[in-house]
């Protein structure tokens, strides 16, 4: 076995171990460890990705001395490695972009705890990405949930604690359903490993035995993950959680945590149930409908919002709707579009959160639109970044948002029954997006004659500005050279089968 194949294992264990290590370090050292770990994992994932692209085959890695159905396994393919790399990039940028807010919002003595949470979150995301075992996935979903909850309430104002409680309640409902579905699946197949379950599911479908439990199990697992990733009717916790937590948390939560669950769902669809079996259940129609509803209602709530960060949070609801709509189409193209949208949305949404914090900082900390007037002149970098993010959200060509919408539309055109609905909703939602994002952009670029607030120059926020530049670059790269990414996603999905 090639040494590079150890990388998934190393990345998970490294981030897990760094969490433990941070618990005895001072805040400063913990911060450094955190950054180094994220960078190292990102670097390793990049190497792994290159290696996998060159070999063109996925591989299985034993977690222990025992082969397939007896021991735990992790599995790495192009898609997994790419996701890991992307998660690391976003996480690093989010941490860097929000670092200057941390001292003001979190008690000094709890900083190292924050970094523990981030490290563990990273490790759980990596494990979710790489795992080949359902029960391992469940355990790491729990780590993910708890550390996300910690990220929400690390800034201890009333709102965040309330949001954390709501988040936990919804998440636990989701975990419960997921675990129950998993148990039924275990009962039917007798396996916990994804590849073995898939074989057995194939047999079950072929025999026509246990049809109802199978469908119920699939439905339970899907519902659980949908609840956890804040699909439309289950999004009540989201605006407060994203709107009031410290900014790095908001960026990470919106762009990574929910995406981790969605990626797990993709794995379940492809590697556990099988794409064709999944499509034959009615589940995809349900996902489709809720996705469409999310797209509309999320945008409508965002339009009504008078608080910029909550507005961005509501926009997340709409964007998650897009992803589920892609699932609901039930085609390979729809899936590719959804996965691309995961990337594009993660890049854009964290950019928006980080840019928004720059704008609110120069408006006396207020998030109301009235106070934000002209803030783009006071903090030029944040203004430009916010505009770029908005353009991407609205779907202007050259930004990543356009490509994902293009892919969705292309996928929709191929699906007979759902074409019209998805295209129309896509159009409406895009226009609604344009309404609230362009409104904000105009607002922040409306010059005020006299402001009580001080501006900020480049010199005082070097790290912040550089982060923003990287984010914009990421967006533009995704928007301009999307073909390699799309190819990679296609290749990764092919490896899934």
């Amino acid at each position: 076995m090639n040494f590079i194949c150890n990388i998934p294992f190393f990345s998970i264990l490294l981030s897990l171990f760094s969490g433990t290590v941070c618990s005895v370090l001072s805040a400063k050292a913990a911060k450094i460890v955190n950054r180094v770990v994220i960078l190292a994992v990102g670097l390793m994932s990049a190497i792994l990705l290159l290696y996998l692209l060159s070999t063109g085959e996925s591989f299985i890695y034993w977690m222990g001395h025992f082969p397939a159905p007896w021991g735990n396994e992790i599995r790495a393919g192009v898609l997994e490695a790419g996701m890991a790399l992307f998660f690391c990039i976003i996480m690093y940028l989010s941490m860097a972009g929000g670092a200057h807010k941390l001292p003001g919002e979190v008690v000094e003595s709890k900083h190292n705890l924050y970094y523990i949470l981030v490290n563990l979150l990273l490790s759980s995301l990596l494990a979710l990405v790489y795992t080949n075992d359902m029960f391992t996935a469940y355990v790491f979903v729990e780590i993910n949930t708890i550390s996300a909850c910690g990220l929400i309430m690390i800034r201890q104002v009333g709102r965040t604690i309330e949001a954390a409680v709501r988040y936990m309640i919804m998440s636990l409902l989701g975990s419960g359903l997921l675990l129950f579905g998993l148990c039924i699946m275990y009962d039917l197949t007798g396996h916990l490993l994804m590849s073995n379950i898939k074989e057995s599911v194939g047999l079950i479908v072929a025999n026509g035995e246990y049809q109802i439990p199978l469908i119920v199990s699939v439905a339970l697992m899907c519902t659980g993950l949908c609840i956890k990733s804040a699909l439309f009717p289950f999004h009540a916790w989201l605006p407060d959680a994203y709107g009031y937590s410290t900014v790095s948390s908001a960026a990470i939560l919106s762009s990574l945590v929910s995406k981790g669950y969605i990626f797990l769902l993709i794995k379940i669809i492809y590697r556990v149930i099988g794409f064709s079996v999944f499509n034959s259940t009615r589940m995809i129609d349900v996902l489709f409908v809720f996705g469409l509803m999310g797209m509309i209602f999320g945008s409508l709530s965002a339009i009504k919002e008078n608080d910029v960060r909550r507005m961005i949070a509501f926009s997340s609801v709409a964007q998650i709707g897009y992803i589920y709509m892609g699932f609901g189409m039930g085609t390979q193209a729809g899936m590719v579009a959804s996965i691309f949208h995961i990337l594009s949305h993660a890049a854009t949404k964290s950019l928006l959160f980080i840019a928004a914090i720059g704008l609110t900082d120069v408006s006396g900390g207020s998030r109301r639109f009235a106070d934000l007037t002209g803030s783009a002149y006071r903090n030029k970098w944040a203004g430009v970044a916010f505009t770029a993010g908005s353009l991407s959200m609205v779907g202007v060509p050259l930004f990543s948002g356009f490509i994902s919408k293009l892919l969705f539309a292309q996928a929709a055109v191929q699906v007979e029954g759902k074409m019209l609905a998805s295209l129309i909703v896509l159009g409406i939602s895009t226009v609604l997006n344009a309404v609230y994002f362009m409104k904000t952009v105009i607002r922040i670029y409306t010059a005020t004659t006299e402001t009580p607030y001080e501006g900020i120059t480049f010199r005082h926020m070097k790290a912040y500005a550089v982060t923003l530049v990287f984010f914009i670059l990421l967006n533009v790269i995704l928007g301009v050279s999307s073909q390699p990414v799309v190819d990679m996603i296609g290749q990764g999905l092919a490896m899934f089968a």
Partner: protein
Amino acid sequence: MSRKKTAEEYEKTFAFRFFRWLSGEKDPYIGNVEMQPQKKYEPDHEAALRREKEHDAIMDKVYDTGHNRWLHLFHRLYQTTSVLFCLFLIALLLVTVSYLPANGTVTRPVNNEVSARYIEKGLEETGAVNIVAGMILDYRAFDTLGESHVLFVATITVLILLRLNKTEKDEAEVSDRRFEPKNDAILQVVATFLVPVIIIFGIYIILNGHLGPGGGFSGGAVIGAGLVLYLNAFGFKKTERFFTEKTYKWVCFFSLSFYCLAKSYSFYTGANHLHSVIPKGTPGAILSSGLILPLNIAVGLVVACTIYAFYAMFRKGGF
């Protein structure tokens, strides 16, 4: 014959609205999209206060469920639908259960080659008499590694939520003790007898984890419970002599690090098909079954400390 309409009357007609739309005078945004003209900033505290009061009044009106019949009705409706939904869920699950393979039989899919190998070869491959312990700490050790980190991250969140700084801590302790007698004699006497027994029992469970029922987690929980009892009987002063936040931190750190590193070694050797140097020992002996015993000890330490930490955090926000 045309009748001259007044301006007001005319404004209500369809033709007026049509022509207004035709000539592009109708603005669909006014009143719909928030966009107000630029005003100079004038700090106006009175207005702000007044606004706040009005806001409060409105909120009172909206959320006073006692008088707001519609909201009340909505709540009722919500609850009814939720109950119905749950009944539906029960029915669905029962139907599902009725289609599942029959319970207690050997022929179900669950009893396949996986469990067969655990039972048949478990003893020789892991060295653990307790097959469950062998399974969770060797075959499926990655899950268990995750599990102990769940506990760890939960402690971290509890620390974030409840840990107080020095001065707050003292106040918290005072208020915590308000309702209970200090140094309850009965409790103390009972505790003197009970605590060592409990703790020894816990240690037994941990050390016996690979030989019989039990293991790190349950043993750790028992020890933790013993510590909690001790704390209740003798107060924080006594326990702080041997157990402080620092102790907790380092015990946790070393146990988890050991766990992580040991498992990493075993994963690494396993995946790369290297020979592991850890001896299996004779099955049934206390020093046997490779890494399972040390891992059980590590887990036990972590759990005991964590449970004590939970309790102390809940009681006074630190220890």
